């Protein structure tokens, strides 16, 4: 048996109203990748914040290399060789990589003036470059953090932990923000770290990743440990059941589509981004009633701008959009809504909800001016109230009350509020952009179920996602976007992960294989 790097025994952490961690036992062996799997709110991050000294546990004991320790704060955790890469990066955007890495334990040179001595940038930069190359990580110590991509920033975070002498690395949902390619790169880095004797705790709720990289898997649910297992002894379905506590349908059951008339027709559409670069270059497609058209593609290939154009949020440079037989190319967003388009936006915080508004008001964001919610100048609170109660029940939104600000709900429930709002109107077209990003298995299942239900009711669905699995699972036809163009439109039964994956990477197929849109 390899020695233990870290163990927690009987950890309990209570917050007002909830027990976030309930008597948790967990051990990390030297040189392993131990996945901590659980839905949002299962207590994974809380447990790691306890280990990292950000929270004080109410009960329980932490052992580092077999010795009982009390960790009062991050500084002490770092001193004991525990480093953490947070889900939301803990980097100062306006500072350089080197400055970020030395922050808190600066190395100085010249006169010994304490906090007013000169920091030794050159030495720190050299140390960083040496360290990073030892683990096959590439970072530029002089670069400013805000200039780096998300993947690069994550690498900086890992180097930061190593630079502080971390032996145990806690990675909190590291893949949530990464593209598939970046995820592969991260896994390669993780393997190289293990080879050099580091130990990793990998927090996630993505089943495939766990099976791909973990040595052992511990599943948390409702603050308790459900069990510990190994990838070779388990399956996705079993892990999902452990996480959610019931059988989960990972594949969406669906009948064959029965497409009707064309609801949305897009012809030779061109759109520019905020920096006035053409990012959608002459895209044409159509979506019919009762089918799901999936748009696959790595993020940043024009999907976001395409969706914004299709909802009236961004002006169209050239081309045509027809919705329900009506020309809406240059229409305002309200016209789209009134013509029967629903939009589940990519960023639910920025574009989906007004976080400070209560749930009931978020549910009438586009219809507040219509009966029964409005009469003349006034909002009719009774109708707003009744609408909210009905939708919260119907869409199973877990909220303390309909007066609760949307911002204080969990991600899954926020998404349900948006879906409830969008689908409660009379809808002919549903545009869903990354509808399940950052959600847990249970919520994903629910959202997928709702999308298929709408399809079967005869709604045309345009699903945009960078999760290949989601696209393959839900779509009846798949369009792959790359570099602002649609490279191919494939019927679902002819689509395989490999074929779509290659197209997503920009590899064009020979014309013989192309099936016209």
């Amino acid at each position, binding site marked *: 048996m390899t020695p233990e790097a870290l163990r927690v025994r009987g950890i309990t952490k209570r917050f007002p109203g909830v027990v976030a961690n309930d008597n948790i036992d967990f051990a990390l062996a030297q040189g392993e990748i131990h996945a901590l799997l659980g839905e949002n709110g299962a207590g994974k991050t809380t447990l790691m914040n306890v280990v990292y000294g950000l929270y004080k546990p109410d009960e329980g004991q932490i052992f580092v290399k077999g010795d009982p320790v009390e960790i009062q704060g991050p500084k002490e955790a770092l001193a004991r060789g525990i480093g953490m890469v947070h889900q939301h990066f*803990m980097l100062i955007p306006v500072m350089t990589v080197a400055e970020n890495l030395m*922050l808190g334990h600066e190395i100085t040179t010249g006169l010994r003036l304490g906090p007013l*001595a000169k920091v030794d940038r050159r030495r720190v930069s050299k140390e960083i470059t040496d360290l990073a190359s030892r683990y096959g990580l590439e970072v530029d110590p002089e670069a400013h953090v805000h200039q780096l991509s998300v993947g690069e920033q994550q690498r900086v975070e890992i180097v930061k932990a190593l630079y502080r002498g971390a032996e145990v690395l806690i990675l909190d949902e590291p893949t949530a923000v990464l593209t598939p390619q970046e995820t592969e790169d991260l896994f390669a880095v993780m393997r190289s770290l293990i080879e050099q004797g580091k130990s990793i705790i990998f927090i996630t709720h993505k089943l495939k990743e766990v099976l791909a990289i973990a040595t052992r898997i511990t599943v948390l649910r409702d603050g308790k440990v459900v069990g510990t297992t190994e990838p070779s002894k388990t399956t996705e379905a079993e892990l999902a059941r452990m996480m959610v506590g019931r059988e989960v349908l990972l594949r969406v059951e669906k009948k064959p589509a029965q497409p009707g008339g064309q609801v949305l027709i897009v012809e030779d559409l061109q759109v520019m981004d905020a920096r006035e670069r053409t990012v959608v270059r002459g895209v044409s497609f159509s979506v019919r009633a009762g089918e799901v058209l999936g748009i696959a593609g790595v993020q940043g290939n024009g999907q976001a701008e395409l969706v914004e154009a299709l909802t009236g949020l961004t002006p169209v440079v050239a081309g045509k959009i027809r919705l329900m037989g009506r020309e809406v190319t240059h229409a305002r967003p309200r016209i789209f809504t009134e013509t029967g388009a629903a939009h589940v936006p990519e960023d639910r915080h920025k574009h989906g909800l007004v976080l400070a508004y209560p749930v009931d008001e978020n549910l009438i964001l586009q219809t507040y001016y219509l009966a029964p919610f409005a009469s003349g100048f006034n909002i009719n609170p009774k109708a707003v109230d009744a609408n909210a109660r009905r939708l919260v029940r119907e869409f199973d939104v877990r909220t303390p009350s309909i007066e609760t600000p949307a911002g204080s709900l969990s991600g899954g429930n926020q998404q349900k509020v948006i879906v409830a709002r969008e689908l409660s109107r009379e809808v002919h077209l549903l545009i869903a952009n990354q509808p399940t990003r950052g959600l847990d298995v249970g919520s994903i299942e629910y959202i997928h179920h709702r999308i298929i239900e709408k399809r079967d009711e005869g709604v045309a669905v345009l699903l945009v996602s960078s999760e290949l699995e989601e696209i393959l699972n839900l779509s009846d036809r798949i369009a792959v976007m790359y570099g602002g163009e649609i490279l191919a439109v494939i019927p679902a039964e002819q689509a395989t992960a490999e074929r779509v994956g290659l197209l997503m990477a920009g590899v064009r197929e020979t014309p013989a294989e192309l099936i016209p849109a």
Partner: protein
Amino acid sequence: MDDVFFVGLLSLALVKATPLALGAMCGLMCERSGVINIGIEGMMLIGAMMSFLGSVLFNDLTGGELPKTISLLVGLLVAMLSAGLIALLHARLSIHYKVDQIISGTVINLLAVGITNFTANAYIDPNHLAGVGVFPVLEIPILSKIPILGPIFFAHQPLVYVMLILVAVVQYALFNTPWGLRTRAVGEHPRAADTVGINVLRTRYINVTLGGVLAGMAGAFLVLQSVGRFQKLMTTGRGFIALAALIFGKWTSVGALASGLLFGFSEALGVRLQLGDVNELQALTLLSGIGIFLLGLVWLIAKLVRGKDDKRSLALVIGTPVVGAVMVASGLLSTFPKIEIPIQFLGLLPYILTILVLAGVVGRAIAPAAIGKAYEKQ
């Protein structure tokens, strides 16, 4: 319109810029660590009164036997301490009790007006306290003998030099020392600073309090190095102009000094023109001509250095210095009619400049990201 006029004007500009730069550095310390400080005005006012009381009472207590400079130094110290204490109150309110920082700053301003007016009415005026005097001019040997530059930079009272040194030290320290890195980290992303073991609250407390000490120095300047006695509400908005200088200077001390000099210059000009010995129209034409010429020159250089990125049109970049030069030439060559500009209007100059600068000229300055938000540990 000779050398003496300009040298006197620039020298006076530096003097007038001193309390602004000190006040702006107070704001810098606070805001770089994430605490908005609109209470600079109040802190300066407290500093001004306490420097007066400190120096006068110490002088009385010692029976006036010690040299006056000692009493003045004691006054300065008392001013710094008491403004530091008031700043500590701001820190306590906004960091510990998480009072909205704008409200907390307003509290400081109102409190300072109340305290100083009350003290003046109840104690200073009835007792007819007279000031001890002002700091003497310290001419720096050799340097002050340099023609033109000498009298502008090296023949001042001591606080001007202190200010210049502090500006350089703060500028260097903010970007090159552990203190600077931590302060900026706490002002940009306090949670990140917390995760690497920096004590966010303590860092903010220290910075706000030290900032108050600087504001106290700015207030003391108005008494000990200028008029020699305390007058009610004598800061007359300088704390707010200092805040504008801070923002105009993009939250750096050198930038704050530069904009402080701009405001100081316009104040000095207002004061100088009130003497009535020069033709106001001629002076204004000449000086705005110089200003426009210099602005155009800066644009031209920026355009040449940056090349294509610079979006200003060539006509504007070349036209501006030409217009400036023409104004200077006409200011020197033509004779201007003598007209009376009311003194009050000349006194308005610094305030008009503040409005103009804040309304338009200042580019997009990016404030520290976490500014104005109380930090809560989870």
